[in-house]
């Protein structure tokens, strides 16, 4: 017996997609397998590592802890949606490059989405707030120092964008 498919509509990075997926399809797998958006990385697949974090209607969530079918109708922002309209790096991405905030890069998409939402809610974080912002994401390479620096650098870049003509 083949599995029943459910109609799921996701607006991913502004583009609407209509899918037919089994109820057990994780949002992370819908993004990667069904939509080919492999920027969202799946590390632990049980909510611990934070690599798969995406923005669901603007709010950071673990895409491996959501069924695609339950969030049908939602807007999803993945790391692919964080670049500027002209394809250049968005401010959080640029900050990671400036501060050497990644080495292997596997965890980076989850950090970028988390920090994007974090700086929207708190545009001028203190050093401790910057650390707290990323406390739910694991990185095995960097030791976090440069990632915390990147949070603070991204805040500067975003503030600078607001001032430019």
């Amino acid at each position, binding site marked *: 017996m083949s599995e*029943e498919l459910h109609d799921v509509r996701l607006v991913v990075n502004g583009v609407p997609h209509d899918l037919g997926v089994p109820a057990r399809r994780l949002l992370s797998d819908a993004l990667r397998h069904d939509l080919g958006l492999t920027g969202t990385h799946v590390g632990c697949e049980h909510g611990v590592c934070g690599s798969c974090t995406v923005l669901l209607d603007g709010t950071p969530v673990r895409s491996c802890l959501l069924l695609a079918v*339950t969030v049908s109708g939602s807007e999803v922002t993945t790391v692919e949606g964080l670049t500027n309209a002209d394809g250049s790096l968005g401010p959080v991405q640029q900050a990671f490059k400036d501060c050497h905030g990644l080495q292997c890069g596997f965890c980076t998409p989850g950090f970028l989405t988390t920090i994007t939402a974090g700086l929207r809610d708190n545009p001028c974080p203190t050093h401790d707030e910057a650390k707290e912002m990323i406390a*739910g994401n694991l990185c095995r390479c960097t030791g976090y120092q440069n990632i915390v620096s990147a949070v603070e650098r991204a805040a500067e870049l975003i503030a600078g964008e607001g001032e430019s003509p």
Partner: protein
Amino acid sequence: MKPAPFAYARPTDLAAAVEALAGSTNAKVLAGGQSLVPLLSMRLAAPALLVDINRLPGLDHVTSDASGVRVGALARHAAVLADEEAHRVQPLLAMALANVAHATIRNRGTTVGSLVHADAAAEMPVVLALLGGSVDVVGPGGRRTVAGDALFLGPLESSLAHDEIAVEAFFPALAEGSGVAFREVARRHGDYALCGVAVLVRLEDRRIVEARAGYLSVSDLPTVVDLAPALAGGGPEVPSDRALEAAGELALAALDPQGDIHATAAYRAQLVRVLTGRTLRAAYDDARRRTEQP
């Protein structure tokens, strides 16, 4: 791993949700799913049917009045944590919620879901039991109220029937002259606690006359211990170090710390001793602050 196949229902009213649940003895309710989905993915749970309640109307409220805080089944932890009125009426809620996983998990996970998941390592079941709260559930026979101390039967086992849905939790307000505190030790911030303690005290004339503590991760069930006997008798207003130590030993007699890969039983027992004293003292200070600067 990936979840095993299951049938899926997404009702848009409560009666239909209860009906869907009643149609299967192997169904699970999906709210936030932050505990359920990992269990599905690891195939520790393989229900035949998932009843998704996220489209049910009128269940995402956090409402407070003089009697306490009512939390709907679809209110996310983050919404409860951010609710200033709830914080004013029962400050223990926010103290404990700040320790529930990470912000990203709290954005999706629900407080009521955490209660009926009945994990003895979770914060909110202990808070409900300590405060003497309750959960309202709806089944084919209508709505009933389950007291906090009757909700937890065993590890990950609540007293809800298979065709009942928890719709609202009630956390009583902090009474006058009372204070609360919450402390836990985890290997990393946001991880499951190795031991956690919530304390509720009531003062009369600056002395503790009632003191209870709730414990997580050191027994099979969220466990509440009456600490007042350790503080009985004269002594100074502020509980002495000796009284705080006695409270820790009293608590330990009612608990059963187990060893696992994260901590030995002896270390967990030591955490009970230390955290009981610290949290009791913090709750006392909290009560003094509230009574002296209302």
